[in-house]
């Protein structure tokens, strides 16, 4: 608890020093992310009868609305909620540190993430300089396969070659599913354990809310930060094109239909904001609880929570 308080004070000092505005956005929302891999929690309000209310899984959409309205560089430490996520590194509610910078791309933002991480963690333990790998390089080196070019049978063979058991329920032609299997089974377990590592330029099929690389449409301007196997942050050079964003939401919903999942309402307010003009920017979400895990040198999220969900 004391460590969490110290980390929050350091976060505030870091953003004060860079003249970044702390903002607050609602935890309740009438819309929800369409991402098939994020299960939102729902509730209802007596003052809005008949409407589904979603607990935020990230403050990203309302913060982008603020950016489109001209708020400029901004940050927020938000409590977020995701159903079905519980384990050694997951609790269904957790804190996300989310921030946006105008006029930079994902590489510049990686520099800043590293600076913040160092400023937060170094008072407690040494932080070696971060390594940076493209997603493709990391897969070639640790899984022996090119994630952008390989055929499905080659991805499956790479998983078998890395000693990964077959997965019950994973379809043979689920490309992103097999990439995630290789990522979590072969790549991240082999990343250095003593320093931060950025994986950047993710496959376009996993672009999420990142813009595609104008020079290579196979990849998106997205990065993830790892410390050993622990995923700490996810960042984008933000997609600003409202039409492309709507297409991605629709594609997500089609995939949700195929998986028999619920269809959350598309966030029209976000699309309207993109329509009106999102400034060139990059943004990142960093798991605060996991940051506390790294800083404390512990390997369970429960060790940095006052009351994990079973005791909440």
């Amino acid at each position, binding site marked *: 608890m004391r460590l969490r308080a110290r980390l929050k004070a350091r976060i505030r000092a870091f953003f004060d020093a860079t003249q970044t505005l702390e903002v607050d956005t609602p935890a309740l929302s009438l819309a929800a992310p369409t*991402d098939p*891999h994020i299960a939102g929690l729902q509730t209802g309000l007596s003052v809005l009868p008949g409407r589904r209310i979603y607990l935020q899984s990230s403050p990203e959409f309302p913060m982008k609305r603020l950016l489109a309205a001209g708020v400029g560089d901004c940050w927020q430490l938000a409590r977020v909620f995701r159903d079905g996520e519980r384990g050694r590194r997951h609790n269904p509610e957790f804190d996300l540190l989310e921030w946006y910078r105008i006029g930079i791309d994902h590489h510049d933002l990686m520099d800043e993430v590293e600076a913040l991480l160092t400023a937060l963690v170094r008072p407690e333990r040494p932080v070696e300089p971060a390594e940076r790998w493209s997603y493709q390089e990391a897969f070639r080196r640790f899984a022996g396969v090119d994630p952008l070019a390989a055929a499905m049978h080659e991805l499956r063979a790479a998983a078998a070659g890395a000693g990964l058991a077959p997965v019950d*329920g994973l379809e043979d032609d689920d490309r992103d599913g097999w990439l995630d299997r290789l990522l*979590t089974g072969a790549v991240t377990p082999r990343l250095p354990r003593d320093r931060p590592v950025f994986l950047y330029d993710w496959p376009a099929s996993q672009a999420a809310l990142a813009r595609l690389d104008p020079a290579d449409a196979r990849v998106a301007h997205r990065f993830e930060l790892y410390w050993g196997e622990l995923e700490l942050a996810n960042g984008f050079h933000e997609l600003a094109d409202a039409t492309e964003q709507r297409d991605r939401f629709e594609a997500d919903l089609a995939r949700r239909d195929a998986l028999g999942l619920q269809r959350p309402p598309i966030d029209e307010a976000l699309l309207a904001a993109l329509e009106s003009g999102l400034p060139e920017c990059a943004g990142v979400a960093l798991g605060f609880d996991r940051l506390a895990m790294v800083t404390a040198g512990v390997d369970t999220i429960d060790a940095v929570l006052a009351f994990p969900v079973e005791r909440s």
Partner: protein
Amino acid sequence: MASYSTNEFKGGLKIMLDGDPYAIVENEFVKPGKGQAFNRVKVRNLKTGRVIERTFKSGESVEAADVIDTEMQYLYTDGEYWHFMDPNSFEQIAADRTAVGESAKWLREQDTVEITLYNGEPLTVTAPKLVDLRITQTDPGVRGDTAQGGTKPAVLETGAEVKVPLFIEEGEVIRVDTRKGEYVSRVKE
């Protein structure tokens, strides 16, 4: 048939895989923030005891195994089967050598053991972790030699043989760790 979703996975849960009953030893939830979630589990085959790793796409369902752990009283053995009784229903069951395994040498009549039943049949018999048994045969004790740490073989009333410290006498009762097959302490009567 009952089934479990991966969300219900936890240590001790009994599931069916490839036609055999398994117990989950360890369950790890692995999920990239924006990607596919998996449950990486270690499972023990309840027939062979072998531990293997399996990975499930989260949200999948797995058939539950009709396996229950129950406490029963050991009655006797006829050499081929070991007979046990449910202390509440007085129902009797017989377990063969495969099910009894190493536990056989720690069983004393009237003692309570844990039996794992699969489809109503005994799958494994587990002796209590610690049992107190009388020594029926060992070489004479050496007095005042408690500090030396030497050992000698001793035969227990169940026929099992364990190493005991030199000062232990025939006829004494000792506590034995059945998992390791080791002497733990002397039991004062």
